[in-house]
């Protein structure tokens, strides 16, 4: 089978358990929003992390292909067609009239072939070059070249065309309805078309609300069928092939496509609202981002009409761990979350919430967030933290990205500092990278591979929610009122130039 999500073969063994860091990074909220109209099955796909670097790149390739040209739109149509096919099938189950069932069946088959042909033409785009799409393209080619496929699709097409060619003439006068074959002449349409030009006039059927035949339709069709017995015989024998036309692997594709499509749809919606996304430079040497923001916060703040702060940063040679300090409620946790989210979406092969981003390859994402509203005693909480920390501090997790938010807040300052240093030493020693949010300023200078970031305040010591390197250039002092409104002589001249 040609999976576009998994490079290996053990698809069925993968289950979607929530990864440990999901809740800490508010990824559960984001994924819920992405998949809210797509169902649990699609949501669970976001819980399955790719198996290693190769599979990450495999997904990224497919994702980039789907973003090209009109591939996204066409695949959405493909999904709609498969959905329509399923609806036709469901309708047939509810119907009792044989002729009606057979005509619906004809439609069901027709829509299926339409979907497959659409997919084939989408994949024929030579701009799509990823490994996953290549594999899928091969599979579709083989499938649509089989004799069975060709024969069935031709028969269905012919029968549908014949059905479409039927015209019924219904005349109503003096309490009576006459039914005949249509003769082609439409004097009143001609009168209207000739004297009242204008497109898009729609003569609607009054009976479209229900799939059941109305009494009038039923009576008319009964009369009409009498003179077209042969055709109704043909579709009856066609319908005996029931379900033979369906390929189970084709039917599995919508689910895998939905992983990418649901994300793109969500991303497009957020873009319309003015939020930036970019395709990260994955596997780059150093971590950096421009205008990175918290996607979960962006969703809720947009609804509450509140602004979302974005941040720029870049790590330099030898900087492996960010220690982030700053005032309470100053945007520290938000920064840490958005960084974790950025790494998650990069690993998933998707776009990230930033104007630009460079993300190295990390083997894992690990997180540890303090549970603030713990009813436990101080000692109990510390214990609890250490217990949760233990499995993370595992020699196996070499090269992981670690997000730590406020460790050991209930310990004495000195103790907390010592423990924090040990934790940092361990992770750095184990080849890990990460961010450590803390109120302990001393940690910022504890290790040569640590870089100190600070959540900034303005001149009135008010939070700006901006995060950056400590000692970074201070924001310029208050401007005069005139400068503020760009109304000095030179500013006005500049505005006109």
């Amino acid at each position, binding site marked *: 089978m040609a999976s576009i999500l998994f490079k290996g073969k053990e698809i069925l063994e993968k289950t979607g358990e929530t990864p440990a860091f999901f809740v800490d990074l508010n990824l559960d909220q984001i994924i819920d929003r992405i998949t809210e109209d797509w169902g649990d099955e699609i949501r669970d796909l976001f819980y399955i992390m790719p198996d290693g670097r190769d599979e990450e790149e495999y997904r990224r390739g497919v994702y980039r292909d789907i973003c090209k040209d009109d591939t996204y739109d066409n695949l959405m149509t493909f999904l709609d067609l498969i959905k329509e096919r399923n609806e036709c099938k469901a309708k047939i189950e509810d119907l009792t009239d044989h002729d009606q069932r057979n005509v619906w069946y004809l439609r069901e088959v027709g829509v299926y072939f339409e979907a497959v042909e659409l997919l084939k033409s989408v994949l024929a785009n030579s701009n799509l070059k990823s490994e996953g799409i290549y594999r899928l393209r091969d599979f579709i080619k083989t499938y649509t070249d089989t004799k069975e496929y060709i024969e069935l699709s031709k028969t269905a097409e012919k029968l549908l065309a014949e059905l479409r060619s039927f015209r019924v003439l219904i005349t109503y006068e003096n309490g*009576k309805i006459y039914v005949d074959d249509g003769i082609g002449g439409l004097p009143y349409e001609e009168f*209207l078309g000739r004297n009242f030009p204008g497109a898009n006039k729609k003569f609607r059927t009054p*009976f479209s609300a229900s799939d059941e035949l109305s009494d*009038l339709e039923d009576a008319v069709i009964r009369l009409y069928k009498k003179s077209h017995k042969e055709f109704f015989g043909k579709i009856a024998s066609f319908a005996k092939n029931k379900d033979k036309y369906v390929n189970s692997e084709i039917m599995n594709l919508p689910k895998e496509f939905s992983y990418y499509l649901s994300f793109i749809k969500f991303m497009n919606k957020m873009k319309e609202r003015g939020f930036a996304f970019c395709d990260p430079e994955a596997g780059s040497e150093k971590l950096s981002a421009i205008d990175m923001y918290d996607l979960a916060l962006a969703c809720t703040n947009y609804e509450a009409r509140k602004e979302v702060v974005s941040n720029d940063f870049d790590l330099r040679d030898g900087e492996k761990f960010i220690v982030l300090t700053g005032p309470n409620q100053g945007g520290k946790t938000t920064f840490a979350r958005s960084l974790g989210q950025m790494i998650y979406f990069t690993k998933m092969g998707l776009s990230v919430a930033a104007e630009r981003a460079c993300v190295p390859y990390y083997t894992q994402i690990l997180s540890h967030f303090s549970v603030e509203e713990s009813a436990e005693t101080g000692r109990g909480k510390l214990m609890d933290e250490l217990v949760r920390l233990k499995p993370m501090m595992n020699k196996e997790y070499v090269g992981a990205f670690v997000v730590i938010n406020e460790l050991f807040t209930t310990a004495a300052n000195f103790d907390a500092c010592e423990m924090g240093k040990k934790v940092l030493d361990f992770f750095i020693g184990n080849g890990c990278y990460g961010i450590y949010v803390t109120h302990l300023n001393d940690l910022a200078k504890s290790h040569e591979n640590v870089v100190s970031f600070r959540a900034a305040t303005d001149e009135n010591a008010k939070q700006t929610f901006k995060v950056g390197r400590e000692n970074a250039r201070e924001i310029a002092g208050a401007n005069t009122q005139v400068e503020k*409104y760009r109304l000095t002589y030179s500013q006005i001249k500049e505005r006109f130039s």
Partner: protein
Amino acid sequence: MNVNLLYSDKDWVKTQSYYDWDSIYRDLGLQTIVDLSMSDLVMKGSRIMYITRPDKFLGDAMGKVMRVPLKTKEEILYRQEILKDCINNREIIEELYQLVATILDDWDQLGRKNKNNSGNKDSRAGLVTDIRVLSLLLPGMRSVRNLLKTKLDKLLSAGFQNLYNRMEEEFSPELEKNIELLLENISFYIDTLPHEKEKNKFTVNLPRISVECGIYDGLKFGDLKLAELESKISSIDPNGIIGKIQGSFGKLSNNSISLYNNPPIQEDVANLEFEVVSYVMSYCSEVLYSLGFFFDQLYFQIGFYRAAVNITRQLFRLNTDYCFPVVKEGDALSYEDLKEIVMLTEQKKDAVGNTGNIDGKILTVITGANQGGKSTFLRSVGIAQVMMQCGLVVGAKQYSSSIYPNFFTHFTRREDSAMNSGRLDEELKRMDRIVSHVGENSLILLNESFATTTEKEGSTIAYDIIKALKEEKVRILTVTHLLSFAQRMYDEVKDDKDTDVAFLSAEHLEDGTRTFKMIPHAPELTSFGLELYEMVLNNG
């Protein structure tokens, strides 16, 4: 079908108004002009008998049109010509206005507003209304056309002449005939009751409908086409014929179905009838929309001209000269006996008229004593400019000016002038917005701007801003008490004979009497206080 009485090439749409119309409206007191436009005078000979009750619709039309500036000389002339027609033929315009009002009233009676509220276009009632409205507006349009036809020798402007011609062209006799035929074909739908022609002899209006369709998914009807449609008047005899018809249709024949005793099929047929009539009426939807739009526009546009005529009548009542302003190129501005008609109306006493010429002056600095008539003069220019730019007459013996669609007012209101950094901030913010929106053909009236800070600071700010804007060819008229600023400007240009800066000052005669007239004069270095001091001590 376009009315095009406001523009030669388009109808009224809510287009770009002056950038900050609310400020202009408030600073210049334009509500007063709108109020004037709502009432006419009833005269007996040359005597005014009474002022008519205000017609709010007229004020509404005036207010809306006024806020959108005309942008070319041709556009202004186009309206001026039509306005002249209206002034010369007040009775015709009145008749036309009343005729359209009657038709719109009838339309309202048909539930126009209800329909808009419910928004349910698919309902049978809505469809019936559409048919009735079309049956009303089509002959209504004919009446308007006939009225115009008889008065064409008096309505000489391009606007009225073209309006009539367009009505002739766009509603050809053939189109009218076809609409009538179509209405006839679907008449069964609104004509549902039997008519008693003679005693006990009834006729009914019944349809003959022939529909062709394809067979779609699940054997349902699809792709419907209308083959034939007519309404036929048939006689019925209440004493038996119905019974006979029913008897003969009782059986199902080889290719026909009887509706007799079959309510479900009768209901289906009724639904099909509805779709047929909807479909046919959809071919008239453009005509119907166009007629509806036409009458709305005509009422609105004629309303504007009635309001404009009313303004001239009111100026007559106030004993004030008015003229059609002349549009000139190149930052022109000259005026003869220009009056501030808002104040004139409000205070009901004769105002001082100003005469002058500041053609080509990019910057005009107006200084002088308090209560000397500076602001009044500034407003009179603003009011005249707005009126000119919507095609109206101006309260002056003569007025000529260039067109400034980018027109701004930046007035410090009395109550704002307390020294207060918040106020300055607010002033600068407004100025910032203005600077963001000025461009070609911009005019800014500044009235005591930047007086909310110290003289020194205010002068610096004013000098910087005004200097920069002047260099960008933004025309400015400023009334100011900032003497350092005015003096600095004056020193820069006083030796330049071709300067594009003018300095006006409130005139005061040698004995100190103030005339409230603006005359060319170097910036005044004395204030009213000193003048008063002189007056009291030297004359006393």
